[in-house]
């Protein structure tokens, strides 16, 4: 149920990690966008977004992440996207986003290895 949408922010080795749970769609994207903008104010270098708790995401969710990726690209930053659901990987591939400064990784550990 969408009412279970939830965002958690933490920091590890100075890298912000944003974990998302639930369904990401037009209704909660504005909230996700606020959180990402806030996080990027404090850190414009790299960002880990963990989507493993996300059951559903559509183009508005991708758009919100793409918007953050664009902000980061101004300072040569990248987004490490933890994402193991085939369906979600699939639409990221259709979107072409993975060709920009958004990397798909298997775990937060892997992401931290890359961003350190």
């Amino acid at each position, binding site marked *: 149920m969408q*009412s279970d949408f939830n*965002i*958690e922010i933490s920091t590890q080795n100075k890298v912000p990690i944003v974990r998302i749970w639930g369904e990401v769609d037009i209704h909660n994207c504005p909230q996700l966008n606020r959180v990402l903008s806030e996080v990027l104010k404090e850190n414009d270098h790299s960002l880990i977004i963990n989507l493993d708790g996300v059951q559903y995401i559509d183009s508005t969710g991708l758009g919100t992440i793409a918007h953050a990726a664009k902000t980061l690209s101004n300072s040569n930053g990248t987004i490490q996207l933890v994402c193991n659901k085939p369906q979600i990987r699939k639409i990221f591939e259709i979107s072409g986003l993975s060709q920009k400064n958004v990397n798909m990784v298997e775990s937060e550990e892997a992401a931290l290895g890359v961003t350190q």
Partner: protein
Amino acid sequence: MSYNETSDIKENVIILNLPATSEYVSVARLSLSGIASRLNFTVEDIEDIKIAISEACTNAVQHAYENHVKTGRIEIKMTIDEDRLEVLVRDFGNGFNLGILGTEEQKKRSEEKLGLGLGLTFIKNLMDEVEIQTIPNEGTSIRMSKLRPLNQPLTAVPLQRNQAID
């Protein structure tokens, strides 16, 4: 008549129109529980509403279109008000004599269909307000509502901030 001009429908009204066959009762239930879960109802309230809407749809499937050649329709209209969720379940079938409820004849009829004659009783027990209108050969509509527990905003999305030690 067409479904095209929908501009005169009140805001915060959701309409679901289904074939009156058994496989769609769960669709009504699922849609409704999706809506109810956004309205700060408790889990128990949502279960009550699910049963009530199911019972009303089940009646439309079982009784409304008896002896009809064509599959009939069920129309469900959900109105989200500040203080309540109102659900109107309507069919366009036989209607029935409200006076029959509670009689021996009714009991026998219910049993023939493995029914307990409890559908309407459940609805009355589980919802806060119930109103039945039925007209012979025009159909039956049950208007039922459940009061919303608290006047919270329509969707309060929790946000947690856990700052781990760096």
